[in-house]
């Protein structure tokens, strides 16, 4: 090799090193922490809010009401499907592109505080500033604790939710002469036979997803066998291969064999398919929680029916129905509930002040909570706030208002939490158990229960 050749290589090497250096610096700059964040103004600015709930029209109502008080703060809301929330959030936080405000729930595998709590700033002082030193007591019992993680209040509760009951299409029930109270398994079976004969699907549910909607039914069945068992099993005081759980799987399968659960349950998802089937009046019953009340008003129901593919929607009367006693042991399954979600503020947000203004207004301010209550998506978090039932535009207010008031009272009184003690692994194991139960008969109920026990992680009460 000549001297000239060596020089060329040397130059090339230097060039290469420089390029690598520049590239590394660029990469390092991309990956490094942002400079000290500015907290911005409390009365103006532009903030982003990401959540899997509420639906965009509801969020827009919240924001419009907020802007009447704070016109110079622009809030941009982005709604994600449950399954998309975790991937989006995870990627955004890793790249420093997270939102200013985000939803956090008490548990579960979508927005659980154990997933996103690390990215949130402590909101206790913000709440104290608004509500005074006794601020925690002004929220519904337990809500603040449920959104506390590692001794940090990671989110302020917007409202609560309860599940463990069913929603029925009263118009379809009436049209087919089916009583709207189905107290026993046989009542339910008989009602489903009537609906099937009329070409209407009875109970629509979707299990083809990793979300835990489908496990609500299993839990309700368990409650009809032994009301205390599920909570005990979540906390490790009972095992999932217990005869109670095996019997619940047997009942689930029987419901499929008897035509109560549709055959397509394993091939559809709760959202959108099962929801659409109910909204399109193709199915008479669906199991959803209190959040589903928001569709009982004519306007959101019309929008939802259109979303389900109904071309000229005529809103129908939907009513909550207490769960039947599936096991016939005399136990009527009660509700399980907790703070549905709270609003958290990204600890790297550059608009912390404006974000705090928005979060405080919606969660600690009576006007904000009234807007939340009137959306009937949530049971309001702040004590003493109630929906303005007469002016919500319900389809059949005469019968819906007393039923909804009772439902909300029951929800507020529930003592068993919904997702707080459901470890993500356990939630996943329950989903798999439901899928295995309904998708075939190659495994016995006992085998499915044993698998659930093996895959679950206990969450003892702290």
């Amino acid at each position, binding site marked *: 090799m000549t001297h000239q050749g060596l020089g060329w290589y040397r130059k090339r090497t230097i060039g290469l090193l420089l390029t690598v250096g520049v590239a590394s610096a660029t990469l390092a700059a991309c990956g490094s922490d942002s400079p000290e964040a500015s907290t911005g103004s409390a009365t103006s600015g532009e903030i982003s809010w990401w959540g899997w709930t509420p639906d965009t029209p509801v969020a827009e109502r919240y924001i419009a009401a907020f802007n009447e008080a704070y016109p110079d703060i622009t809030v941009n809301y982005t709604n994600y499907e449950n399954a998309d929330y975790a991937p989006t959030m995870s990627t955004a*936080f890793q790249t420093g592109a997270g939102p200013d405000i985000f939803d956090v729930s008490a548990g579960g595998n979508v927005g659980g505080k154990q997933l996103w709590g*690390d990215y949130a700033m402590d909101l206790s002082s913000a709440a104290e500033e608004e509500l005074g030193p006794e601020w925690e007591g002004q929220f519904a019992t337990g809500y603040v604790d449920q959104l506390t993680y590692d001794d940090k209040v990671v989110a302020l509760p917007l409202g609560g939710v309860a599940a463990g009951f069913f929603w029925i299409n009263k118009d379809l029930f009436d049209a087919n002469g089916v009583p709207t109270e189905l107290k026993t398994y046989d009542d339910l079976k008989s009602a489903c036979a009537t609906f099937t004969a009329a070409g209407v699907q009875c109970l629509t549910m979707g299990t*083809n997803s990793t979300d835990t909607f489908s496990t609500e039914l299993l839990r309700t069945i368990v409650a009809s066998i032994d009301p205390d068992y599920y909570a005990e099993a979540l906390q490790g005081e009972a095992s999932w291969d217990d005869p109670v759980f095996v019997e619940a799987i047997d009942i689930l399968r029987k419901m499929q064999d008897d035509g109560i659960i549709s055959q397509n349950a*394993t*091939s559809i998802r709760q959202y959108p398919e099962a929801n659409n089937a109910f909204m399109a009046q193709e199915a008479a019953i669906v199991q959803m929680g209190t959040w589903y009340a928001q569709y009982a008003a004519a306007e959101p129901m019309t929008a939802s029916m259109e979303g389900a593919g109904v071309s000229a929607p005529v809103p129908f009367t939907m009513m909550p129905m207490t769960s039947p006693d599936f096991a016939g042991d005399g136990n009527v399954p009660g509700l399980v509930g907790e703070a549905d979600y709270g609003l958290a503020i990204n600890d790297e947000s550059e608009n912390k002040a404006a974000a705090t203004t928005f979060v405080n207004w919606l969660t600690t301010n009576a006007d904000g909570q009234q807007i939340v209550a009137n959306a009937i998506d949530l049971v309001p978090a702040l004590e003493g706030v109630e929906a303005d039932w007469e002016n919500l535009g319900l389809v059949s207010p005469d019968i819906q208002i007393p039923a909804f008031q009772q439902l909300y009272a029951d929800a507020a009184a529930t003592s068993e939490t919904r997702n707080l003690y459901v470890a993500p*692994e356990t939630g*996943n194991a329950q989903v798999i158990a439901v899928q*295995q139960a309904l998708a075939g008969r190659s495994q016995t109920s006992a085998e499915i229960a044993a698998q659930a026990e093996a895959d679950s992680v206990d969450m003892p009460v702290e």
Partner: protein
Amino acid sequence: MATSATTASDEPLARAAARPGGDAARRRPHRTSPGLRWILPGFVVSAGLIYFCIAYSGYVSLLPWDWRPRRPATLEGLGSYGRALQDPLFWTSLQHTLVFFVAAYVVQCALGIIFAAMLHSKVYGGNLFKILIFVPVVIAPAIMAPVHRRVFAVDGPINWILERLGLIDVDAVGSRNWTGWLSSGLAQIGLADVTPNWIQPSTSLWVIVAVQVWSSVGIAFILFYASMGQIDPEVLEASRLDGAGNLRVLVSVVVPGLKPTIVALAILNAITALKLFDYPYLITAGGPAHSSEFLGTYIYAQLFGVSSHYGYAATLSMLLLVLALALSITMSRSARERRPGRKVKGVGL
């Protein structure tokens, strides 16, 4: 076919380079250095990004299996790898990958060869058929997945057809079941679990295979069609003079001539199987009960579906990388070993 096409285009260059004073030899100093300078920044950034990500994944895979960002990062060595090797779902995913590869590959090759042979026969409306066969290749899985979900739904078009053919009965509670003789026949051959509910553990994997074949048979067809066009007509003529019929010509003359394409398709299918994610995620979500879980969906589930197990997801990703590398090297070597014999196969090269 990709293998033979590359070789064919390389040969004139190689010959030119070997000629004293040839074109390639004259251009050599200009061909290497100026081009390299131009591509160097882009090359460094892209390679830096790719290899940085791989190295970072390798590092994360050595952290605790349930590690996630903002948690203390303590190196724990190969513990996650041990966990993966003892994880039944990892092996189930691999098994599904293997079954998917073999099934999709065999059916794709068979259909590709049949379609290519038929369309070489100057059938009426041949161009239309070519388009129809190839169109699924260019449609994004995200667009087609909801359609496939509907096609395979219990009350979807497939069952509608089977119902009209008298193969499915609808019982009193509205459930669809195989008609009596078919049901007992399936039970006798151990397929009692196969019901007209396609998204279920015994059939969901085959739904994914069917969808994959549908969406990619056009590629196989195009490659085989082009490859068949390069077979020397004299060879075909000679075989016919020797008394070979259509089937004999296809099996004994045409198919052996397609061997490079068959090998190329094997590599393409193996890569597709290893990185498969979109169809299982969008159609079956890897289920029900993990019955259509693949490595791609399992890694995704570990990262986003349960509780952000970054460490374990990185471990599975590294194992996937090792598998992909091993497979690529093995197949490339295997293809290279076959190359000397390729010219005598009469595929027109």
